């Protein structure tokens, strides 16, 4: 036990830890930061309404509940009408209701050949729009009445269009849970976890070899069983890294995406824009998806740790170690972590690269399991070979 504690102390080198944290933070900023934080985007409004609808109606939206959503939209339209009536500047331009304003702008947007940008009425309208952002929702005022009406009416349209499809999805899901946001975010989480594990754990055995303490270790009372202690310390560290990083990502998902509220909502939804999982119906929920990724993170992480234990043991110096650890990270992190990005998890998409080799089988769980199996094989080989090796 004392040996394991000593090994843990060596692994959690403060300088290296800072380097890994900084690198992970930078990678997060570049690859993942913008995936869930979409300030000013209409997607955030959809997200807000998805949360509100979930709290009001549960995980699905039934046809009779749609009427309530339509009432929300009517209330907002009444609010917009009131703004137009109460502001005297609208009347001279010929607008008495929100609908008239929408019709004018639609005409302007879709019949651009006829539009005269020097029209004083249009200029005046632009000024008014700056005040209220009633129609052409500006990024800075995405939360305006006009933007909210647009968002709600689009949600209603999505729902009505879904009713025409052969397979109807009534589940409420935030559009943040789709191929552009939630899936890449979770993929990024897997990549970052493997990056942190590679960075912190890969030099465990190489460091001893380079500082020439390995002979001392091997000639001690514990002898070659030192490798087992080192492996246990690496596994404990890996579990700690995975758990800590998952805790951070979960906190972000809860605060930014409302993971807890959405937990029971199906991933297949009339709001999720093109996600159809192979698991038919509404049984595949946001929570289940999250738990699958958590399992993948642990399996991938442990598989990588076992592989790194072997690679670290056979490397004579840091550069030689890096030359082995980088491909190991690429195979585990990029290949394993990129699964949800390539085609959405469990999404039947024909040009996913691995399908070229594996056909249409549910290949996703196989990748982490293969990496785990490879890791176990490498670690067992290393331990067995060290037992007999002449050092």
């Amino acid at each position: 036990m004392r040996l394991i504690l000593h090994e843990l102390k060596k692994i959690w080198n403060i300088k290296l830890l800072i380097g890994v944290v900084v690198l992970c933070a930078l990678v997060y900023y570049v690859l993942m930061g913008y995936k869930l934080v979409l300030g000013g985007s209409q997607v955030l409004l959809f997200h807000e309404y998805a949360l509100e609808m979930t709290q009001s109606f549960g995980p699905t939206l039934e046809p009779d509940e749609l009427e309530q959503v339509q009432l929300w939209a009517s209330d907002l339209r009444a609010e917009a009408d009131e703004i137009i009536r109460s502001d005297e500047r609208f009347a001279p331009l010929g607008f008495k209701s929100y609908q008239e304003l929408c019709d004018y702008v639609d005409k302007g947007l879709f019949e651009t050949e006829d539009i005269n940008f020097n029209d004083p009425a249009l200029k005046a309208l632009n000024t008014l729009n700056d005040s209220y952002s009633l129609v052409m929702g500006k990024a800075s005022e995405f939360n305006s009445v006009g933007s909210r009406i647009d968002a709600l009416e689009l949600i209603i349209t999505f729902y009505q269009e879904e009713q025409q499809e052969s397979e109807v999805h009534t589940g409420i899901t935030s559009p943040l849970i789709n191929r552009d946001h939630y899936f890449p975010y979770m993929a990024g989480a897997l990549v970052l976890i493997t990056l942190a594990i590679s960075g912190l754990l890969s030099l465990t055995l190489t460091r001893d070899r380079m500082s020439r303490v390995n002979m001392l270790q091997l000639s001690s009372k514990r002898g070659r069983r030192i490798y087992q202690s080192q492996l246990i310390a690496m596994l404990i560290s890996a579990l700690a890294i995975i758990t800590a990083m998952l805790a951070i990502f979960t906190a972000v998902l809860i605060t930014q995406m409302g993971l807890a509220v959405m937990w029971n909502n199906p991933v297949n939804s009339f709001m999720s824009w093109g996600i159809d999982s192979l698991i038919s119906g509404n049984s595949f929920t946001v929570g289940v998806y999250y738990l699958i990724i958590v399992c993948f993170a642990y399996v991938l992480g442990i598989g990588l740790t076992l592989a790194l234990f072997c690679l670290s043991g056979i490397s004579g110096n840091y550069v030689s170690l890096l030359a082995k650890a980088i491909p190991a990270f690429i195979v585990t992190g990029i290949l394993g972590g990129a699964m949800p990005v390539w085609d959405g998890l469990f999404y039947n998409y024909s040009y996913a690269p691995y399908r070229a080799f594996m056909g249409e089988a549910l290949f996703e769980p196989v990748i982490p399991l293969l990496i785990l199996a490879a890791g176990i094989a490498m670690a067992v080989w290393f331990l067995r070979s060290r037992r007999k090796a002449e050092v």
Partner: protein
Amino acid sequence: MKKLLCSPTLLGLIVACLLTNTFFSTIVLGSADYSSYVGNVAETAGIRVNDEFQNQLALLQEPKESPESYFLEYLRKDTNGLSNLYETFEASSIAKSEIAAYGITGDVARLLEEKCEALQASVDAKAKSGEALDLYLAGFTTHEHNALVFIWRMFALEGALIGVLMVLLLIGYEQNNRTAALVFSLRKGRRLMSAKLLAAMAVGLASFVLVWFASMAIYLALHPYLIHIWHSSVSSAFHIVFDSFVFRPFLTWDSFSLFEYAFAQLGISIGIVLSVMLLGFFIGMLIKNNYLAFFIFLVTVMVLYILPPTLASIGQIEMSSYVINHNPVRLWWMQEYWFTEGTRQYLWPRFETIGVASSLLVLSLLALLGYRHFWRKDLA
């Protein structure tokens, strides 16, 4: 150099790169059937879509309902009525669309306009040469070209990685083998470090060139039709890029055939690999531990990537972001735009050449500073 060449690490890295490149070359076979057909047609009918080409195409017959018959139909549709688009194209429209799409104002807008006005001479030259009428890979040109650039970008990344590891391996060699005290107390002493840098750069560069040519040979073996259109212009009318919400041709400053373009890409990639090796040397000189040095190197790379867009978001120092955007990391990221006007992200013509030259200069100075630091460092 001998130490590096005998190192199994180098051999392992080269093999790993070749395996990776073979994997990626295999999975980008999306449109191979049609492209292969176009390549075969180009072999017999030529690469310039003119009357002679159309006559040859009209003579071609394929068995009914066969895939080739569909391909021939597509090709006839693709090439029918192809015009020399550069005759009417105004380069200034690129700047106008960028300025309108992103609300660019002030000096940045002026420089963008000036850059695109300068590009008009290239457009006129292309209009005269008629290279818009080159077949390239007809309807799949953009897809295939992007696949090719993706592969070149991979090569450059691998070259940079091998280069940095070679530099770190060689400068840390004495430390790792505990011969530093002996070696640096020799008559040649610390001057040995400059020889180590040169050796590492030579080996790193040779490895990159080897990986590049070997991987290209694999790629061409998997995509043999490229050889038939090797002399097609990369600015063919079939090569369309989507930027600033508009479609426009792939407009290069000079006229390049695909063959020439491949070597031009190699040239700039060599510059980037050398720059990155110099950066690795600088960091390696400051940090004794190779492993930590590599981490710092990665952090620096990420910072160089993030810095320009971050600075651009801070209004007053926006111009500095355009200057820093010429760093090797951003240049690598923008590889698909090399030899073009470089979109709104670059304000001056030939950004890749300026970028590589300035990166080499700045990083050579940094490497010198690092060397100087090592010269004065207490090695005991």
